[in-house]
């Protein structure tokens, strides 16, 4: 056994003052942040009407609701629900495709390596940002005012909301593309359009296809909820059944949504692998 060397604490302390006596600001930073976070949390509980009695009353109510949900039972409306589910999937597919088609040209305008001018790019980016700042549900409400209740409003809502997201994602994909191939096309005398078509697109399209597939997947989820404000699909049925407290039907509808989302997940995962190989999709 070797005994540890005698250490002269005072000497070490003198040599590394920072380790032994961290300045008060550094020592207090973490507790102060935690205290501030907790203070806001407690203020939030008070301000948002949280009370233990209300919470536990709600919890027992929730327990009853869960019990009443078992077993899931569509009643006699299974065909209607299946049709609504088909509607939801249609909304997701159409909305995403529309968004992708319109976002591609705009994303070129927002990409640094295509439009070098900051002045031109800035408004396009802010425009896309403000579209993204508005939730799909709000867009659905707006479109309902324009084309009336029904799934078509849902398609347009998803298309507009995703247009903003795609514009940003596509332009990022374009910006991260390898510039050498574009230069190669330019060196062989290609025009600007040739550069985009043969230099950029072959690199960017697989990435974009992956993103579009991913969005179809996530839009299946969004499409289920826009029905709540009246824009068609299974959300409409779900909101109605919740309002009339038909809990068995509600649980059946939720199960249907879960199964549909899982199925779409599975399919699009396979397709993504087929299109872009085993590369991860951002």
């Amino acid at each position, binding site marked *: 056994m070797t005994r540890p060397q005698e250490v002269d604490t005072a000497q070490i302390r003198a040599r590394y003052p920072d380790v032994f006596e961290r300045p008060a600001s550094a020592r207090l930073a973490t507790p102060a942040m935690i205290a501030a976070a907790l203070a806001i949390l407690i203020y939030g509980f008070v301000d*948002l009407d949280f009370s233990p009695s209300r919470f536990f*009353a709600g919890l027992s109510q929730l327990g009853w609701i869960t019990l009443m949900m078992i077993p899931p039972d569509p009643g006699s409306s299974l065909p209607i629900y299946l049709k609504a589910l088909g509607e939801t999937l249609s909304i997701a597919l159409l909305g995403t495709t529309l968004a992708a088609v319109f976002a591609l040209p705009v994303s070129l305008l927002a990409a640094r390596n295509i439009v070098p001018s900051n002045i031109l790019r800035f408004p396009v980016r802010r425009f896309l940002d403000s579209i993204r700042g508005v*939730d799909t549900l709000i867009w659905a409400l*707006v479109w309902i005012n324009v084309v*009336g209740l029904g*799934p078509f409003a849902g398609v347009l809502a998803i298309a507009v909301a995703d247009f903003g997201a795609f514009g940003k994602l596509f332009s990022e994909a374009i910006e991260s593309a390898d510039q050498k191939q574009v230069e190669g096309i330019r060196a062989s005398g290609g025009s600007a359009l040739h550069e985009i078509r043969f230099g950029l697109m072959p690199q960017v399209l697989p990435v974009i296809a992956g993103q579009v597939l991913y969005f179809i997947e996530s839009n299946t989820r969004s499409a289920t909820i826009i029905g*709540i404000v009246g824009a068609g699909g299974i959300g409409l049925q*779900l909101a109605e059944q919740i309002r009339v407290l038909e809990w068995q039907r509600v649980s059946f509808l939720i199960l249907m949504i879960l199964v549909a989302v899982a199925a779409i997940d599975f399919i699009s995962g396979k397709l993504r692998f087929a299109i872009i190989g085993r590369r991860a999709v951002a």
Partner: protein
Amino acid sequence: MTTAVSILPAQQLAALNAAYRQAVSRRRLRLLLGTAIFAAALVLAAIGAEVNLRTLFSYFGNFVSYFDRILTLENGQRVWTDVGEWFWGWRKWLKMLAETLLISYVGTLIGATFAFALNFFAAENTSPAPWLRFVVRRLLEFARTVPGIVFALVFVIAFGLGPMAGVLAIAIHSTGALGKLFSEIVENADMKPVEGIRSTGASWLACMRFAIVPQVTAGYASYALLRFEINVREASVMGFVGAGGIGQELVVAIRKFYYSDVSAILLTIIVTVFIIDIATGWLRGRLFGKEART
């Protein structure tokens, strides 16, 4: 200097050319097939979603004029000519906005806490038992897949109208989403510290606390901030189903055609989302360096 490009004899060339053409035509065929299937799916979807291009074209003017209308005050002037009149309800709206932010803050914090408690059971490398991992993963998946607003609809009935339902809905949805992301961070963590601590005879809890947590806190905080950003958006629509926040004001304004109010509230929401985006981005960059900005 001359470069010699060797040209193959015609016979060999013809065979190569034929093979090349065959490969190209096979690829084209596959592409064509894929496009055809996709187009067919689109047509089917269009029928399913009752797409009516005539409605769209005849009403598209409405869409444009809708924005014209929401940017016009009741006296027929543009909204920005009289900002005081445009934002007449700013006191009330700011209060609702603060409530929205509070809902997303409390919801995110509760969700992150639960996700933190659960994610070690869901991660492949730290879960104490396979059956526990399976159960926790399915639980998180459920919380993640059911949209937040559906939870809100149910909670409004169980807990009564008001922001509490919104907070709980956001908390549950965040638990699901963050639980998955957190457990992925844990799966990427270095296991050597765990082995080191276990070799001293420490319990599972001590292993997590002293080997895993120090590695992952930065990632956790980064994802939680990102989630907060998303939850602000989510909370802004919770009011649609009566679960508190500024969405309540917005849906009333849209449904009752208070046009200039719609644009004022929308602008408030957009600006807030911008500010939160920038602030959390800055905070993440500040706290965790550039690489954590995903």
